[in-house]
């Protein structure tokens, strides 16, 4: 029985439990709710929770364990040498899953001969095991729910502290929701770590981190050095920051120090509007408008510096535009955190507004602004759509902003959306790239958040 039909049954049982628990508590108290320790609804809720939670926990555990167990059993059917060979097993498993999903599709793609036959065999085993596991799971889960319901009903007593119990359970649910943040981080690390380790088994880590050539080829003999990608990432980010930081910072200065309240009330939402535009829009802008426009000026018909419309400068400029509102709204917050007393002190001595800003406010706000720029840099490094659509595909170590370049994020997309098989080094490299990107941005974020927090504490 699939989860989609199991869940409504569980919900119905829980509702039943609620009504039964409430009624039983009331009848035990002789129909007078004042004779109960807690409100009747608390007794009902306790029964419902006892019905629902253990069953759901079991269901979740079962869904996690089944794939592992089934995979293990199916893998046991394969010879030891296949299992030892890196990548071969996961390749076979993905074939099996596909065959199990659509048994007729196997003929063409899985190949001919003994391998195809053994795959078909394994796929049948896989389907049977999964079906059996699913049936068993439904039965156990339903029995658990019924047991929970019965137990909770039996324990109802007028002096039972149902409210404390319900609230304790609720609080642990709240804790569970909060811990999801940690689990997500762990999930990110785990999902990339296994792929990364697999990749480094196929491709030496030294060549990956220090290789200066990025040339994946699906026939084998790929060169997968990260340096050209890292260079492209940093170079494009630098162009973007060179656009966004001065404009964003000066816009924030104008908004927080010069603009009249009316102008501020109009301009701030407009800038925020810019921040809410999805990156796909900027990507399309780079691809269709900015790239060709730059190519007209700097390309073969113009100055001749540019080969195509896709270049580091195309992506960098558009990304800079995207980051302006990000930098300006962060800087605006930070400038506003500088106490007015400092401005008054300086103005009271006869300093002009710009002197006050340059000599007093900006130095005082510097740590916060550095933090904001670091956050913007992390944004730029992790940006995907603009570089996928505007920067080009060629990985090269070049100083010329008019050259096409590519970035870590763009290559993650191309390696994982291409036709490469998920077990090959060419696809697995995306996990190593993702890991590098994650570590890079995490470092920047931690540093930036730390700097900004320290800065805020200073004026609180």
């Amino acid at each position: 029985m699939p989860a989609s039909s199991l869940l409504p049954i569980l919900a119905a049982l829980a509702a039943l439990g609620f009504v039964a628990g409430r009624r039983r508590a009331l009848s035990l108290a002789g129909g007078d709710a004042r004779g109960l320790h807690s409100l009747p609804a608390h007794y009902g809720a306790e029964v419902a929770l006892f019905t629902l939670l253990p069953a759901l926990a079991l269901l979740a555990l079962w869904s996690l364990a089944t794939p592992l167990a089934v995979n293990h059993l199916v893998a046991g059917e394969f010879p030891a040498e296949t299992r030892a060979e890196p990548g071969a097993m996961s390749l076979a498993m993905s074939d099996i899953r596909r065959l199990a999903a659509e048994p007729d599709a196997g003929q063409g793609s899985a190949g001919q001969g003994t391998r195809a036959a053994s795959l078909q065999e394994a796929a049948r085993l896989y389907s049977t095991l999964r079906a059996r596991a699913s049936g068993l799971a439904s039965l156990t889960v339903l029995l658990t729910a019924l047991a929970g319901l019965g137990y909770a009903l039996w324990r109802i007593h007028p002096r039972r502290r149902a409210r404390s119990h319900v609230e304790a359970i609720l609080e642990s649910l709240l804790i569970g929701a909060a811990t999801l943040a940690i689990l997500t981080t762990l999930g990110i690390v785990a999902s990339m770590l296994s792929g990364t380790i697999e990749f480094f088994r196929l491709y030496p880590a030294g060549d990956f981190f220090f290789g200066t050539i990025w040339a994946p080829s699906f026939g084998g003999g790929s060169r997968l050095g990260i340096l050209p990608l890292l260079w492209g990432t940093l170079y494009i980010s630098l162009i973007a920051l060179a656009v966004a930081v001065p404009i964003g910072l000066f816009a924030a200065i104008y908004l927080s120090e010069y603009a009249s309240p009316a102008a501020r009330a109009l301009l701030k939402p407009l800038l925020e509007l810019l921040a809410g535009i999805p990156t796909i829009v900027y990507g399309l802008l780079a691809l269709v408008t900015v790239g060709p426009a730059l190519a007209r000026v700097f390309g073969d018909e113009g100055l001749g510096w540019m080969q195509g419309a896709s270049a580091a400068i195309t992506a960098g400029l558009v990304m800079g535009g995207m980051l302006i509102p990000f930098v300006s709204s962060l800087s605006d917050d930070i400038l506003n955190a500088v106490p007015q007393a400092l401005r008054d002190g300086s103005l009271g001595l006869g300093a002009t507004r710009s002197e006050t800003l340059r000599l007093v406010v900006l130095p005082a706000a510097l740590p916060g602004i550095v933090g904001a720029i670091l956050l913007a840099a992390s944004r730029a490094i992790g940006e995907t759509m603009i570089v996928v659509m505007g920067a080009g595909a060629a990985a090269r170590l070049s100083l010329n902003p008019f050259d096409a370049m590519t970035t870590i994020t763009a290559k993650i997309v191309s390696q994982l959306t291409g036709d490469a098989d998920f077990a090959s080094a060419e696809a697995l490299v995306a996990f190593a790239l993702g890991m590098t990107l994650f570590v890079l941005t995490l470092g920047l974020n931690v540093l930036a958040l730390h700097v900004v927090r320290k800065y805020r504490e200073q004026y609180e």
Partner: protein
Amino acid sequence: MSAPNKSLFTPGPRTRARNRAEARFRASGLAAILAALAFLTGLMGIILHDGAPAFRQAFVTLTVELPEERLDPNGNRDPADLARVTTFKYAPLLDAALLRALEEAGAENPFAKAKKLRALLSKGAPAQLRARVLAEPELIGGSLTMRFLASARADGYLKGRVTRESLARERKFTPAHLDVADALLGSGLLESRFNLAFLTGSDASESRPEAAGIGTAALGSLAMMLVVLALALPIGVAASVYLEEFAPQNRLTDLIEVNIANLAAVPSIVFGILGLALFIQFAGLPQSAPLVGGLVLTLMTLPTIIISTRAALRAVPPSIREAALGVGASRMQTVFHHVLPLAMPGILTGTIIGLAQALGETAPLLLIGMIGFVATNPPASPAEAFLAPNSAMPAQIYEWARRADPAWYERAWGGIILLIGFLLAMNLAAILLRRRFERRW
């Protein structure tokens, strides 16, 4: 020291220089604002200018003869027999109809063969005709006046995108076709109309940009947003309530705080990798399914929702909590009866903004396979809306942009108008909600 009795009315040279510096500084601030505004206006201008044409489409109205001997050689109107007649048999009927229309308009066919005229119509036109005939077999033997989609080139000519110069190097659609188009325009058979199919339709194959619509992808986005709303709102509120109202000051709480702050700044593509590895490769959920997209976007949006929900909870003054605790409510009752209802407008505002962010997100969707195929049919059932492969609005826009043809770019910009329209509506709802329920303590 400054001269004590200098008049205030005659500023010194130094003051004048300082005031000039002040003016320069102020002007650079204004210039930055203007640059940002120019970027915004330019962007909006390009979006509207390049996207608006997608909402109009060229159609050709033709009267087609439906001879029985071609379409139903057995003459029994048996649906099975009719279905065996392919679009190849229908295409020449359209050629003939075009030829007739041209004669009525008083123009000559500039081509040796009538077949060449077909480039004026969408490649899907024969299928359009066949579907109509299969639905109403009684039409066979008579004639039918019907509006057909014009081809993307003919459509582009009406929109000014295609000119005689731009066609100089094309083989299938030549300037001579434009003469035919002019003649049909003159007789009113070729016309530009509001393109409802763009809003409601599905994606079309690469050679038929004129037939593509964003409706199916919008349904995919809707399904994802429902998943995000159903998961991110309760989980986000639960996590925020715990952190704001119950959490003790300890290592675990600190760890959660640090994680939330960092997750909010993790690149979205990383969430795509997580989704690919966890939901598709490990849990075996179907690829390209809106359910998976919704799960990934939920994880991505949670930090945003938690941060804004916590701010909303913090804005509820402690006196409210003290009042409830003072009459003997438990902490849980205090939170659920008093604090949460008061914080609700703020929570909903944050949730809407989080949803808007999720709606526009593209990068993670690429990795879980919401691109690279043509979602030609809308989902048939609610379950299919979540589980069957579909695209989403931003992914569909990306897919169109990759097809590298001005007609597809027009579709992409048109899709962006719709996407931004949704985002603006959501942000406006958030602002109104905040205004309506804004409370000052």
